[in-house]
């Protein structure tokens, strides 16, 4: 089972994300800010990280920078999931090493599409 780390300072968003990811057969680990998330990654690198941008202490973008410089930190697929929807933010995220980007609000369809895009899951066969 693949592990996905959900990093968001809102417990409601973490709960929604957990439900969606568990339905997609991920084991979910939560962190409420970037510092927490780094601790989790040092312990065991997850396959996927769903990452908020605006958080206290270390924000999502700073976390990404630290992560990508850690040993093994290049392996997780990082998908931002944030209310920051400007093209500047998106470009910075990609340049900073993010693999995909979700603009909130999000639903299961969007998470599944983005995770399929980066090869974390296979999308179901289309139906009529």
């Amino acid at each position, binding site marked *: 089972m693949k592990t996905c780390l959900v990093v968001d300072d809102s417990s409601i968003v973490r709960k929604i994300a957990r439900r969606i990811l568990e339905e997609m057969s991920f084991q979910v680990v939560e962190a409420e800010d970037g510092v927490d998330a780094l601790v989790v990654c040092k312990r065991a690198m997850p396959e996927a990280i769903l990452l908020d941008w605006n958080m206290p202490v270390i924000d999502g973008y700073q976390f990404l920078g630290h992560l990508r410089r850690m040993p093994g930190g290049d392996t997780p697929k990082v998908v931002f999931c944030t209310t920051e929807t400007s*093209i500047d933010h*998106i470009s910075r995220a990609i340049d900073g090493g993010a693999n*995909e980007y979700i603009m909130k609000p*999000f639903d299961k369809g969007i998470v599944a599409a983005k995770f399929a895009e980066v090869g974390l899951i296979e999308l179901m066969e289309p*139906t009529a």
Partner: protein
Amino acid sequence: MTPPDYEYLRKLLKDHSGLDLSADKQYLIESRLLPLSRKCGLPGISELVQKMKGGSSPLIAQVVEAMTTNETFFFRDKVPFDHFRDSIMPEMMKARANRKSVRIWCAAGSTGQEPYSLAMSLKEMSAQLAGWRVEIIATDLSQEVLEKSKAGIYSQFEVQRGLPIQLLVKYFKQNGELWQIGADIRAMVQHRQLNLLHDFSQLGAFDIIFCRNVLIYFDQDTKINIFGRLAKTMEQDGFLVLGAAETVVGLTDVFKPLPDKRGLYRPTGARATIAPAASAAPKVAAMAGR
């Protein structure tokens, strides 16, 4: 869309699905319900609302479904676009090496996601395609749908399903919560209003035809008729791309499926015995009555 039509739809959706649209979501309604109007043979949303008020409960169910699911994605189903990039275009570039031109028809262009997905794919191949002329003709029954396609403006929701983020950043311009595909990509697609039931030979010959998820709305005789006329308007070494739930098998021998390439078909050279397009016209009335 008139304000009373909007209010009617808003209330109906709230009652039937719990979907609660704020006062400024005309755009969302148009993007979802225009394709549905078209499938029902209705020119626009006002006519759709009229028909719903007439008490068509299957139609109401379809409206609710169209609003609560999203069907028109960029790179919808992904596989056909992988085939386009990895099989169809490389083969075409060999076959047309002298002519250096390829003509593509999106026969159910709808609100533009499919033709623009092809245009973006071509743009990504522009190094190999230097000096080539590639035409994309997008046709649709509905003028309103074509207008949306021409504008190339999509909601945040629409650009997040199927479109890789790199392509969004590269080819779209942001305007608040809306995203408009760039003028250079829009310029690669020509739009024409066209009913597939009518003669389309005036469009000329095509190398590649995408005709996905539209034939499912026709009866068997009409499908056979359209396949016959599609084969006639296609180069002998061309490609036909159908939707995942569609096939020619058991209907016609003018196309044959490509083994191991789901959704891809090629002309067989068999001559179709087809009635002229006009004889299919009564089916329009049948469709409109759905």
